[in-house]
């Protein structure tokens, strides 16, 4: 999905620009995800080169990089690599996941991954894991209530990690919705019409329109199809502009 060509009419220009800015904000997060993916793939390839199965301790090498992403990229509040079950030799499942707290301190997430003890041990059903695994491509999950890792209303951006062509897990980064809203609200408010952003399923991710609050659904338009074409459209008086490269649509009332 490329950038939409700039449109000539004055009415659509600012909207196209805002959509491109929103796409750019998430591209910066995807750049962090891509860095984590590349580092993880290197590490897993090295283990494969030594003809051994990687272990959870190997993933400790990712920590300086994760720390950099968490402190360097404003929107990123959680980052890491989530292993496909069975990848590692010493544990059945593993999240090498780090979070930056309100105090700015970066801490590891420790989950109970014993399915005999925890009803939340299986993380493979979450969109941030299942989508990249199913499609082989990067994905934006949410907005959703993340009760597994952060207890925050979040977007999670993720990318599949492949080793010798096989799915090994996902590299991912969390963006808390309150931070995303702070980043995009000035853009949305700059538009002459009430504006909000929805994901492919129509769930509102950020809004400057009191009639469409974050978390609610905007029903009617087929946002998934529109994202497929990557071209602006209209529906029942609504202006619809896909955000360049990311699965969000700018909706103008």
């Amino acid at each position: 999905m490329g950038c939409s060509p700039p449109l000539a009419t004055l009415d659509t220009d600012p909207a196209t620009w805002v959509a491109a800015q929103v796409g750019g904000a998430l591209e910066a997060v995807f750049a962090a995800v891509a860095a984590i993916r590349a580092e993880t793939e290197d590490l897993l390839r090295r283990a494969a080169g030594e003809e051994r199965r990687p272990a959870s301790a190997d993933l400790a090498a990712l920590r300086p990089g994760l720390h950099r992403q968490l402190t360097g990229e404003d929107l990123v509040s959680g980052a890491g690599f989530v292993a496909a079950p069975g990848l590692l030799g010493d544990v059945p499942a593993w999240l090498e996941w780090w979070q930056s707290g309100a105090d700015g301190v970066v801490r590891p997430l420790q989950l109970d991954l014993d399915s005999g003890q925890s009803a939340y041990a299986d993380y493979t059903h979450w969109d941030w894991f299942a989508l990249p695994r199913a499609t082989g491509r990067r994905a934006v999950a949410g907005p959703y209530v993340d009760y597994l890792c952060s207890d925050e209303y979040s977007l999670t951006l993720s990318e599949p990690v492949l080793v010798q062509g096989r799915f090994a897990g996902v590299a991912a980064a969390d963006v808390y919705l309150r931070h995303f809203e702070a980043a995009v609200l000035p853009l949305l408010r700059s538009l002459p019409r009430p504006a909000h952003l929805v994901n492919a399923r129509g769930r509102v991710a950020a809004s400057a329109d009191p009639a469409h609050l974050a978390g609610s659904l905007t029903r009617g338009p087929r946002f998934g199809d529109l994202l497929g074409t990557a071209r602006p459209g209209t529906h029942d008086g609504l202006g619809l502009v896909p955000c360049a490269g990311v699965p969000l649509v700018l909706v103008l009332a």
Partner: protein
Amino acid sequence: MKQDEKEGAARKAVFSPVDNRARVEAVVRRIGDAIELGLIADGEQLPGESELAGQLGVSTVTLREALMALRQQGLVTTRRGRGGGSFVSVPEVPADDRLKARLRGWSTDELRDLGDHWAALSGAAARLAAQRTEPDDLRQLHRTAEELAHTGDAAARSRLYGRFHVELAAAAQSTRLTREQVALQSEIGALLCLVLADDAFREEVADRHRALVSAVQDGAHETAGTLAERCVREPVARLVAVRLGL
């Protein structure tokens, strides 16, 4: 502990604030639930008495009484001497007797209030979820309802029961309702084992949870809210009945 220390501790207990009993129960409940839910692992050593008392915000006397009660329930063993301390010991199968001893720590009034809180959370979550979900958002709830229908072990059933209500709150897109639900499940989760062991009731429960997911999916928010409240009230009513029989 030497005899005079023991007497000293006993004297301290006598002159501690009168709500001390409730604090002991609160500590027993908190640690007992954590062990029951697997948050503290079998064989794990608990922190030292003064550290643990500090963390829980209770006096060491209160903590000692609570540890005593936990030892009586068989959830904690204390080894003396080098390498000694208090260790978690989880019996192989969660024994009914042990859970009943824990239930005895709840008054029927507290259980009723817990049920009211839970019904308020899940009822509100179901109404909101019905307005805010589309089919793809309900996969996790469908999966949990099915697992609930096919899981034999009462402890696993109670974990799934809790997970269903947490997922429902998440489907409402509410972080606050979800956090409250997680906290509430950590209180009631273990006790639910007592009523979910009954296979006939489990069938009923699974059917009602399936009906609830369908109502959410159909956007029938009032029906969904009412069904969610029933999903909560019935197990709590059964718990109260068990409590009254103790």
